[in-house]
Structures are given as structure tokens and as C-alpha cells.
């Protein structure tokens, strides 16, 4: 999913800062709604259908990291009508900073289709679900090359974070290749959980413990990167990755399609995994809030959401759509985990600036050893 490269999106950000000042006014007359989201996240056919129904053209822009979206929103008038912040910590702190407008729920007739359980998970970030609706959700877990892992260690604990965090285990896979997400907010909580500490801890002592645990396995990790592991797993260049569920499932699909004998599997760590929810919200500066509400309502139709779940391999936050999702996705325990696994999922909350800085610094230490 997150395949547009950093470089491209950084350039796009710079251009966007300039372009945003001019774009909305010119586009407003032509009835265009500007959506800014992860790449490959909404089925293009679904957007075409919206255009056919309403005559409104959809401009779909993409980013590959939440940080880039945030930088664009905080720079000022972004020119976007609908954006896709991840609930924690991004939506939470952006709602607090007043970057979003409250949803006009009278314009959202399909609100009833949403999954109450996911809405409840989002409430910590967005009190009363006033500003955002859920889109897809998933977990952070382990992707692995089934054949190679079996050859190297037949008894490998593929359902445990030991695959990444136990030095003796991960050492075995060093030569074959191990990659980890390059996102402190997506890695530290799982490490804390593995160590038996509260995953949402804001204590510097806990952060130190997690940093030490990661430093012990750092020599065995080839790279920290938030999207390269998709190709790495799919092509058989790496053996184990800690990444986003949908990305690893995408790698698995690609590996199967290329028929090179690579099988990729996704497992949710038995210690408990971080649950994230990607949401859709309307920036305060949105040029066309009415159109934004219209497309949000469209994106809550069960068939529309189901098509996007089939495309991305992610579970969605739309309960009414579940039966319409294809069997391959719906019955995959890595995507729609059984209730006992769902009970062990956790979410995190935003941190203050000091802790954030300490966390980024600790993350640099994890990556570079300094």
C-alpha cells in the first residue's frame, strides 16, 4: 500500500505548499473533490461510480507516510477536502490542534453501517467520533517467507514477536534478511508489550528498556523502512519483516502471482498486537465541505467499502459490508482475526512534545547505534 516513495512525496509536499494556494479556487467551479490518502487505498472503480452518480470529479492524491500528510495540514491551507489520518496518534493530535471540521452527521445517511467496536477504538482519538469515520483497520505484525524460515529453523516461533525481538531467534535469519518498519509509533508499543510493559507507556524508563531490547537485535536487522519490505518479501530477498498487516498480505498476493516459489504469510503476534485505524476526515480549510460529505457518505456504502477491502487486503470499519467482502479476505485470520485475538489488540494515545522528542531520539539510536 505505502509504495509511493518518500522522495516523491517530499517533493510533492514542497510543490503542494506552493500549488495549494492556487488550486482550490480554480477547481471549485468544475465540481472537483480533492482526496488525499494512502496509495491504492480506495478502489478506483468506486470513485468512478461516484463521478457517474454525482458528476463530481475526484482528484485522488497519495502520500506514503502520515508525517507527510501532517506536515501538509500544519503548513496551512492544504486544498484537500478529504484526508486519511491514522487514528493514533495522528488524528488525535490533529483534532486537538483544531485541524478538522466537525462532521455534519445529517448529511451522512450511511453512518449506521459503521462497526461500533471500531468506532469505540477511535473515540480515544476523536471524542464522540465528531470529526472522522473509520476506513480500513489492521494490525502490526510479522511477515515471513514460509519456505525459507522452515529451512532455517523448522521450529521458528512465527506467531511470536520472538521472531524479531529474541536475539537468538532473529540471528538465524540475519543472512536471509530481516526488515522492520521505520516508524517509532508503530514499533515501540509492540516492543513494550513484548517486554510485559504497558504498550502505551509514556515513561522514559520504559522507553529506555524498549530501546535496549531493540539495540540487542539491531545487528541482525538489515533495514528499517516502511515499505521496502513489501517487495523484499514478495521477491524472496528477505525472510522476516515486522510491518503493516495489509502490506504483508499484499506481498503475499504478489508472491503468489509471480509464481517464483515464494510463499509469504502474515501472523498477528500472540503477545498482543497494535491495532490501528485509518480514518477519513474533512480538514477545516476544505474548499468544498459539501462535496466532502457527499463522498464520505458514498464511501460508507457497504458494496463500496467491500470492494476496497478486496483490493487492499485490509479489514474495514463498516460492519454492514463484511458479508460482501470476498471469502479470501474475510476468512483470513490475519485480516479479520478471531475474537480471542481481537481481545489482545491494543491502541496508543498521543504523547507530549518532550516524550515525542525522546522517542524520535531513541529511534535514531536504535537505527544507527548512536
Amino acid at each position: 500500500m505505502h509504495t509511493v516513495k518518500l522522495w516523491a512525496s517530499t517533493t510533492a509536499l514542497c510543490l503542494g505548499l506552493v500549488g495549494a494556494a492556487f488550486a482550490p479556487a480554480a477547481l471549485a467551479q468544475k465540481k472537483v473533490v480533492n482526496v488525499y490518502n494512502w496509495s491504492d487505498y480506495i478502489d478506483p472503480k468506486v470513485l468512478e461510480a461516484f463521478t457517474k452518480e454525482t458528476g463530481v470529479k475526484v482528484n485522488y492524491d497519495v502520500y506514503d507516510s502520515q508525517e507527510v500528510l501532517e506536515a501538509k495540514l500544519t503548513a496551512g491551507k492544504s486544498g484537500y477536502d478529504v484526508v486519511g489520518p491514522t487514528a493514533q496518534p495522528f488524528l488525535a493530535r490533529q483534532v486537538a490542534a483544531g485541524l478538522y471540521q466537525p462532521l455534519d452527521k445529517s448529511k451522512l445517511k450511511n453512518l449506521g453501517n459503521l462497526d461500533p467496536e471500531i468506532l469505540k477504538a477511535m473515540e480515544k482519538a476523536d471524542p464522540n467520533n465528531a470529526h472522522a469515520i473509520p476506513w480500513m483497520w489492521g494490525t502490526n505484525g510479522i511477515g515471513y517467507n514460509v519456505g525459507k524460515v522452515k529451512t532455517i529453523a523448522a521450529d521458528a516461533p512465527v506467531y511470536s514477536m520472538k521472531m524479531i525481538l529474541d536475539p537468538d531467534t532473529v540471528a538465524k535469519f540475519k543472512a536471509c534478511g530481516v526488515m522492520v518498519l521505520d516508524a517509532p509509533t508503530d514499533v515501540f508499543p509492540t516492543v513494550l508489550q513484548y517486554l510485559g510493559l504497558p504498550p502505551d507507556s509514556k515513561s522514559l524508563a520504559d522507553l529506555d528498556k524498549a530501546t535496549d531490547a531493540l539495540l540487542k537485535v539491531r545487528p541482525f536487522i538489515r533495514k528499517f523502512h516502511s515499505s521496502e519490505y513489501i517487495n523484499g518479501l514478495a521477491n524472496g530477498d528477505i525472510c522476516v519483516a515486522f510491518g503493516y498487516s495489509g502490506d504483508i498480505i499484499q506481498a503475499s498476493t504478489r508472491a503468489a502471482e509471480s509464481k517464483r516459489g515464494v510463499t509469504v504469510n502474515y501472523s498477528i503476534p500472540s503477545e498482543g498486537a497494535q491495532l490501528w485505524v485509518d480514518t477519513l476526515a474533512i480538514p477545516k480549510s476544505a474548499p468544498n465541505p459539501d462535496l466532502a460529505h457527499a463522498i464520505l457518505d458514498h464511501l460508507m456504502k457497504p458494496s463500496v467499502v467491500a470492494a476496497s477491502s478486496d483490493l487492499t487486503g485490509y479489514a474495514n470499519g463498516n460492519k454492514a459490508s463484511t458479508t460482501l467482502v470476498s471469502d479470501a479476505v474475510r476468512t483470513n485470520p490475519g485480516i479479520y482475526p478471531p475474537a480471542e485475538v481481537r481481545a489482545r489488540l491494543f491502541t496508543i494515545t498521543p504523547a507530549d512534545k518532550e516524550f515525542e522528542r525522546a522517542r524520535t531520539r531513541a529511534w535514531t539510536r536504535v537505527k544507527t547505534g548512536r
Partner: protein
Amino acid sequence: MTPPGFLRRFMGRPTVIAIPYGWLGLFFLVPFLIVLTISLSTADTSLTPPFTPLIDWVDHKALQVVLNLGNYMFLFSDDLYVVAYLNSLKTAAISTFFCLLIGYPMAYAMARADKGIRPILLMMVILPFWTSFLIRIYAWMGILNNNGLLNNLLLWLGVISEPLPLMNTPTAVYIGIVYTYLPFMILPLYSTLEKMDLSLLEAAADLGCRPLRAFWLITLPLSLPGMIAGSMLVFIPVVGEFVVPELLGGPETLMIGNVLWAEFFSNRDWPLASAVAVAMLLLLVAPIMLLQRSQGGSPHARGGH
């Protein structure tokens, strides 16, 4: 003053000079001043954009200017920044050295090649630019990967029994950077070497100087301006290089470009990120100014192009 004369004067020298200066002013100086002001402000993530303005009206009567030098002090509070700067300089120096080592013989061979094929050779150096830089770096990923072309070839030849770990190592970063920046070294070297007066070498030979010695005493010193121009064209952009280490490097690759990214995007600290950028610029500009002064002019002027 007749209109054509006025026009000629208007369209003449001042305009020709004004265009590049205007360009530099608009696209270099103005953005730099914006970055400089941000670097002197204070981060505040509750604002949009996330820093306090430098100049503020207090109670609609007093103009208050707050210069926050703390961002620059912070760069010394943690050795991360200094280490990242030094790492960037080291990477740039080593890359420049290898570009020179590989580029010089290539430029030399091109400059001494038959006049007819020189344009073709020149074309071959420039040709890779016709493909996107990003795609070429991705191609290197395909070559250097464990399951990539190079390892598969070596395995097939039986030279190695296990894939060499090349990808995501400093070696991969150097390969990527030297590959990317090599043309910037070759082109100025070629243009100096090509213009060299070959009769100097004939005179040296007539006086009994051996070719190798003649190269050392005549060709090399005469090509120095080209070497300096090429080295600057490689060294300066490599210090701030972000894409190649990001894509080909491993976890231990710490360069100032990556630190800047983390400050801007992860910490959302625009002022500190700007301070890192300004410090990087000063770090680069100071030695270059000194070098230019010691040479009494820009290397380009001496290089003759």
C-alpha cells in the same frame, strides 16, 4: 535617445546579468531567508504552521522581534548532529575520491580519442540521464539484492556459495552515489583535458621527458581546474544526499539529510530542522569561499567553460 538604442541598452548587458541574479534571488535567496527566519523561531505544534512568528505586534503598538538561538545551541547538546555532519562529509569525500579515480581515466580516454567518436563517447556519458534517477537507483536495488542479478551471477559462476550481503550496506551507498555523480566529474574534466595544448607534451618528449613523467608534470597540473570543478559538483550535493542512502543504505547509514527528515517529520520541529539546514549550508559555503579566495577566482572561470 532613440527607441532602438534604448531598447538595445535595455535588452543588453544589464538584462543578461539580471536574469541569473533574479533567478538566484527568487529561488535561492528568498527560500533561504524563509528557512533562516524559521530557524530562529520557536516550535509550537499547536499553531499552523507549527512555530511562533519571529515578528509580532504586541497590543497593536509594540513591534516585538524574538530571535531564538536555542535551535542552534541544541545542535551541540547532542553529538548526533555533529556525528551526522561528519558522516556526511566523510561519505562525500570518499565518493568524490572514487569519482575522481574512475572519472579521470575515462575523461582522459575520451579527450584523447579520435575526434570523430568523441561526440558518441560524450553522448554515452550523458545517456543515463534520460532515465529517471529514481528508476536507476531502483535498478541498482535489483542488481545488489540477495536474490539480485549480481549475486545470482556469482552463485551461478560458483565464485561464491552464499549471497554476498551488498544491499543496505555502506558499500551499496558508495556504489549508488559514485554511479549517480560520475558524469558530473567526467564532464568538466573532459572539457579541460580536451582543450589542453598537446604541443606541450610534444615539447616535453623532444626534451627527453618520459610520457608518464610528462603526464605528472604537465597534464595533471593543467587539468587541476577541471578536477576542482568536478570535485565540487560531486562533493556539495553528496553532503546533502538523501535518496541514495535512504534506498540503498542500511540502518547504520547516518547522514544529515536523514536527520533533517526526522526533525521535520517525526518531531514536527520545523525550527530545529531549519537550523540543521542552515548549519549545513554554512558548513559547505565557508570552505568553498576559502578555496575560491585562495585561487583568486571561481574554479569555473579558471576551467575555461
